[in-house]
């Protein structure tokens, strides 16, 4: 309902919207894309290096190395978030630092740090997944739907 209300803006308001759009600083989309690409790639390269590290020095195969790699990346993200550096990287990189698992770690960790002042149970515990909660919920749900589709497709479609 509120969306319809927005469409029914008065003509003065619509005029102002155009007026304002002309004058506001636009996001530098192209620059942001390049930065995101570079930083995202760098983070993934670091992740790959960590994978090789675990495969070389420990008994992990390509199949099983995912676990310690992700754990290490999240650990690194925790260090950077705690040092107050991750949000600066993010201002530069945008999606490049938000999409990899380090971004997820940052979302959870920053919320946990922030709500320390309200205690562990009601503060940290209740608010930790403020930002990441949707990721977890919809990720799990999407996985379920996709698995369902795949099962149906294989059973009946013979794919």
């Amino acid at each position, binding site marked *: 309902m509120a969306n319809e209300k927005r469409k029914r803006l008065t003509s003065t308001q619509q005029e102002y919207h155009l007026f304002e759009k002309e004058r506001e600083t636009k996001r530098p989309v192209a620059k942001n894309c390049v930065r995101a690409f570079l930083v995202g790639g760098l983070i993934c390269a670091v992740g790959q290096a960590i994978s090789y590290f675990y*495969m070389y*020095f420990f*008994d992990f*195969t*390509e199949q*099983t190395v995912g676990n310690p790699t992700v754990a290490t990346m999240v650990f690194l993200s925790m260090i*950077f978030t705690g040092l107050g*550096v991750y949000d*600066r990287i993010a201002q530069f990189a945008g999606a490049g630092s938000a999409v990899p698992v380090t971004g997820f770690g940052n979302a959870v960790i920053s919320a946990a740090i922030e709500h320390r002042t309200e205690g562990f149970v009601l503060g940290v515990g209740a608010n930790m997944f403020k930002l990441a909660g949707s990721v977890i919920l919809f990720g799990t749900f999407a996985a379920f739907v996709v698995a369902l589709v795949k099962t149906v497709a294989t059973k009946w479609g013979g794919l």
Partner: protein
Amino acid sequence: MSMRKWLFATIVICVWISGCAKEREVKQQSLQGSGFMKTNTNGDMQPDHINQQTAEQAAARIKAREDIKDAVAVNTSKKLLVAYQIKHMHRFYRKQIEKEIDRQLMHLFPNYQIVSSSDLKIFWKTKELRGKIGNKDWNEKKTDQQIEKIRQLSEERT
């Protein structure tokens, strides 16, 4: 102040990563071959008390494939362990290639129990095992045990 934190963090990470460059000393821990990271092998280890002819054959056949970068194999009288690396762009078809190679090997060597894998770690381990076969005090039983260990490792899922 924020620049300093940034700089400090970067330095810490660089130092941390450079620690991994100490290959010589740290290599003790698991993998001992020489020329190990190089993917070109010319099979200069000639084992003399276990005949590796089957393994050589298998490796050569697999290596000859267009989509395979490198292959290495070890065999005992009953088992054949083949490890190979798929060329990067062909990794999309990994499952398909694995199936094909498995079938091919089973067809070529019907008397052996085949263990094949495209995993990088298994490749490294197979290479290491090949190196060990040339040593004294190494016999078929040990090879068998090692192959079994490697087979179990290749079947781990998480």
